[in-house]
């Protein structure tokens, strides 16, 4: 149990995908203009990350290791994740139109996102088992959701503030992101050790 809590805290706060590891910056900047779409994107990423970590874990342990081609993990994972997301999109469209309306438009955007590939590779590097990989996937997605939600609320406020001409739009967004990353530096492994020993 303690391991799982540790994994969740690690991926949501300490190794936050966006603010500490700088993965998945494209949707972080691109889809954070208003809260509604940011939340949609956040949940879509969480969903895909959880699915991708469990599938890539299976592919790695049941295909790559028996065939001794572990060095092909990156390219295989890209292939598997991309087709998986496409497949899931089709299933959702068929089975649940409301869910498709909420998540569907974001799914194609994250098929080859580096954050999704990142969680698959990190799971392998950390030798996580199936359940640990799954939890790590969800936690990393929630970390993404947290970061993009904070960012989108700040940017909505920024919209009605006066910003120097050359900082308007993307530059001020990146500066904001940088300051948020500084704040997240406060979460480090010492915190984890204090919390769960």
């Amino acid at each position: 149990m303690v391991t799982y809590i540790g994994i969740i805290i690690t991926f949501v706060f300490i190794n936050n995908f966006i603010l500490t590891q700088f993965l998945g910056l494209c949707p972080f900047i691109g889809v954070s203009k208003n809260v509604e779409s940011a939340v949609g994107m956040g949940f879509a990423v969480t969903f895909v990350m959880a699915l991708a970590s469990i599938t890539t874990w299976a592919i790695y342990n049941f295909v790559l290791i028996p065939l001794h081609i572990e060095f092909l993990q990156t390219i295989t994972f890209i292939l598997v994740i991309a087709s998986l997301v496409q497949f899931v999109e089709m299933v959702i469209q068929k089975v649940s139109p409301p869910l498709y309306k909420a998540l569907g438009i974001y799914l194609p955007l994250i098929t080859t996102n580096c954050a999704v590939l990142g969680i698959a590779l990190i799971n392998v590097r950390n030798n996580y088992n199936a359940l640990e990989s799954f939890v790590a996937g969800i936690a990393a997605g929630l970390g993404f959701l947290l970061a993009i939600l904070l960012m989108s609320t700040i940017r909505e406020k920024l919209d009605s503030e006066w910003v120097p001409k050359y900082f308007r739009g993307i530059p001020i967004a990146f500066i904001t992101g940088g300051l948020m990353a500084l704040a997240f530096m406060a979460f480090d492994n010492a915190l984890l050790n204090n919390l769960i020993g």
Partner: protein
Amino acid sequence: MILRVIFSFISVAALGGILGIGLAFASRVLAVKKDERIVQVEEALPGANCGACGYAGCAAYAEAIVKEGADINLCSPGGASTVKAIAEIMGLDADVGSGEPMVAQVHCRGSKATSSYLYEYRGVKDCNAVHMLFEGDKECKFGCLGLGSCMKVCPTDAIYYDDEGLVRVDKEKCISCGQCVDVCPTGVMQMVPYSADYIVACNSTDKGAKVRKYCKVGCIGCKICEKKSPDGGYKVEDFLSRIDYSQTGDRSAGAEACPTKCIILADDSLKESTEKEVQNKKEEKKVVNEKA
């Protein structure tokens, strides 16, 4: 070594092939049948996603037309041609309505130089925000507050600041979605027909004497425009001149006679050209005078 390379190549190719075939198969099995008419109607719509029809975008409106039988004449950017195209797809009679496309126009030319202000506003650049403080910083409660809330909602960037820093609408870009009219707190943004040549650039229904005190370019309700252009459709009500655009008579005489010059050309570019014409005439006169 070579074997290993070939083996890796084959295994990735096999994996890709399996996944590809799987996806192709899945797309067949899981294909969602979409009513063809929805696709066609969506193509017929302009695709600006402005929301003027009251639906969440062109796709949502197309679905509402086909599935819920929504009215087909709600798309104002598309105008008559779109209604006809949709009617053809749906097999309905085209009820085009009035036909004349409308465009938004700002009915105010009061600037810092010509109007008096109650206080200096320093805050969020938003007309509705300043309107909460004593109904705006201008002494005139009907005029343009000039902070550009209309520009923010305009889906086609048709609204801009002109050389004098006043809000104008480019009627070529305007798709008559009416979002600027909805967002404007003073109601100074109003729809006029596309063919409108002149507009009364004032929205104040205060008495003439009061208007004179706070604005140099406001309508004082003197009725000179009515007299000078009797068939121009000018009508003064509540101390404010308004134009009835169904009257097509000459309006220029009334505009020129206006003592506060608040009847202006609806098109900014036209104004420049007439100014040039006036300039040219003056120069011609000069030349004639010099010759004489």
